[in-house]
């Protein structure tokens, strides 16, 4: 078992492809995404016409996690509906994440 960070990003669907590419280029080995809906400061986004919300999850080292978060903060936080948070997780098969 080794300690890693599970980073969760919830944002607008239109950004999903770009962010997924950026995660990989910043050091993530993979990610999982799903379509979600809900309400936040930017209102409800729950249909295809306006685009839905996407939740992207990735398990990364603490260093990569910080790198990704500061990238998201700089590029997206002020201009898009986005929240990002992480919590510590313990994983087996660490070669999947490093």
């Amino acid at each position: 078992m080794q300690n890693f960070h599970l980073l969760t990003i919830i944002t607008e669907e239109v950004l999903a492809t770009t962010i997924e590419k950026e995660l990989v280029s910043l050091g993530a080995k993979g990610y999982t995404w799903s379509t979600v809906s809900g309400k936040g400061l930017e209102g409800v986004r729950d249909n295809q016409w306006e685009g839905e919300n996407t939740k992207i999850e990735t398990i990364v080292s603490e260093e990569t996690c910080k790198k990704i978060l500061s990238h998201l903060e700089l590029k997206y936080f002020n201009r898009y509906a986005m929240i990002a948070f992480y919590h510590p997780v313990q994983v087996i098969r660490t070669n999947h994440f490093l």
Partner: protein
Amino acid sequence: MLASILSPMVLAFLLGIIASRVKSDLKFPDSLYQSLTIYLLIAIGMKGGYKLSLATFEEVWQPALVAIGLCCTIPLWTYVLMRKVGKFDVPNAAALAAHYGSVSAVTFSAALAFHENLSIPFEGFMPSMLAMMEIPAILIGISLARINTPPTESNPQIPIKEVARELFAGKSSLLLLGFLLIGFSVGKTGWEQVAPLFDLPFKGVLTLFLLEAGLVAGRKLSDLKKGGLFLIGFGIIFPIVHAIIGIYLGSLAGLSLGGATILGVLASSASYIAAPAACRVALPEANPSYYLTSALAITFPFNIMFGLPLYHEIAKLIITQ
């Protein structure tokens, strides 16, 4: 006018608006929405391509020139009007210009159904005009914002080439252009093989789609007050002006009454499938409450319910004079 409002498509759209206003639990599964969009785009493209194969170059080139001229100039004056009269900032004015210069495939479909219901003949190659008019205005709108706002470090800009690639690879233009080509290449025998799926059920599928469109437009109605009176007036008056210009130029280019009306509908309609996604990515500072609300909650319902019969009457006045 009553005949148009009493069509199943328009009534389904109204029912959708009512359903969302009374907070009904009616909701289309996302995959159904996607499937209906794909069906409509293929059906429009395929039939349009087949009809284009029957037309001569002489019939098509002038209307095509008018269509391209319209979608390249509408964003320019929309942008100036939004900046000077509407007092919108650069990104919002540019996003509105992109939406109103581009076209709506669903309004176009409703215009086809309207003409078929009233047995008014029109040029079958009109879907090729729809395909031509979708993308240029969006690129022009986004470029207008680029020219007027220099990039800064905290405001990185996506290259316009990348935006163009995404637009051309996007499902609406890919399917429309792809099936125009397929319909054009396979001709009558090819069209007859698929017509039972893409011709006869078209209006039924459009009815389903408009029910969903009504649900979304109804939800967006609550955002109207954010847009203000100017946007409501703009969302109704501008389409009428564009329709008149489109009908007039269409008739000069040799289109029939039906064809000129449909070109007017294309000029008047605002995009809400391709343009919102492109603007959200390329113009994040623009507020969707403005562009999406005016395109989806004002112009679209107005065109479907009142615009089509109105433009038909205007076309009769212009063409018979």
